[in-house]
């Protein structure tokens, strides 16, 4: 007579699903933050009339210490044109938007070569600015 072997059930406890999802989310959030430029310290300049900016393919920033960044990673101004060209690839005109975030204290000696580099890479330049505060109406 053969004895039947008991089948062992191995299942992931369903109450742990929330924890798994939570940890996965934390993981992806950290991964996403490593690519963005929210860690860069800069104050946008103000202008009276600003438009809503479309989605950008790349972002170039100049921080309060006059350091330049491409997509959140520090880069020298001389390297921007080549690296930005690689990022933009063969994207057609109109889909080559590049955000330029310049700290309001930055000087022309710092930001003009960066603007020239974006232009050289064929990027559609969008200056990221803050709308000027309107005086309160009586």
């Amino acid at each position, binding site marked *: 007579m053969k004895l039947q072997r008991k089948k062992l059930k191995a299942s992931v406890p369903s109450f742990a699903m929330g924890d798994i999802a939570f940890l996965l989310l934390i993981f992806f*959030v950290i991964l996403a933050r490593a690519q963005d430029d929210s860690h860069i310290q800069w104050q946008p*300049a103000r202008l009276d009339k600003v438009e809503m900016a479309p989605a950008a393919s790349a972002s170039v920033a100049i921080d309060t210490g006059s350091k330049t960044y491409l997509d959140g990673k520090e880069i020298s101004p001389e390297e921007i044109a080549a690296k930005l060209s690689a990022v933009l690839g063969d994207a057609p005109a109109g889909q080559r938007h590049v955000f330029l975030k310049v700290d309001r204290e930055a000087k022309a000696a710092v*930001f003009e070569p960066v603007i020239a580099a974006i232009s050289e890479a064929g990027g559609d*330049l969008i200056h*990221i600015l803050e709308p000027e505060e309107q005086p309160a109406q009586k």
Partner: protein
Amino acid sequence: MKLKRGKMLVDPPECASSDIAFTLIIFFLVCAAVQPETGMSQILPKAEEKSEERQQSKNLEVSITASSIILNGNPLQLPEFTRRIAAELKTKTREQDRIVVVKSAPDTPYPVWIRVSRAIDSAGGILTLELESEKIIQIK
């Protein structure tokens, strides 16, 4: 005699706390991602280095310093500059004549530069940067 009503203790189930945290994170992520950026788009032709080929006499030249804006040699303040550049460009119909060559002093602040470039764009000018190229001159 009054009877005391017993307090009811209702604790949320502990196994749901991670789900609550998960939902909260989703909420804050969506809030953070939705914040729109505002700015000003600018079309720039390729930056030119100082060359002799440029038709200096035909193009408008703007020099920007920290304290002044100079249009074809005349120092102006921004409101006057906005009016003058608009008047100058009004008469120019060909695209190549609408090129405005901008040369900035190294200490020109970004807010000044952006206001001047906005004035040029609004007047229909094509902004071109003139960057100083470094040259090594050997003296014998």
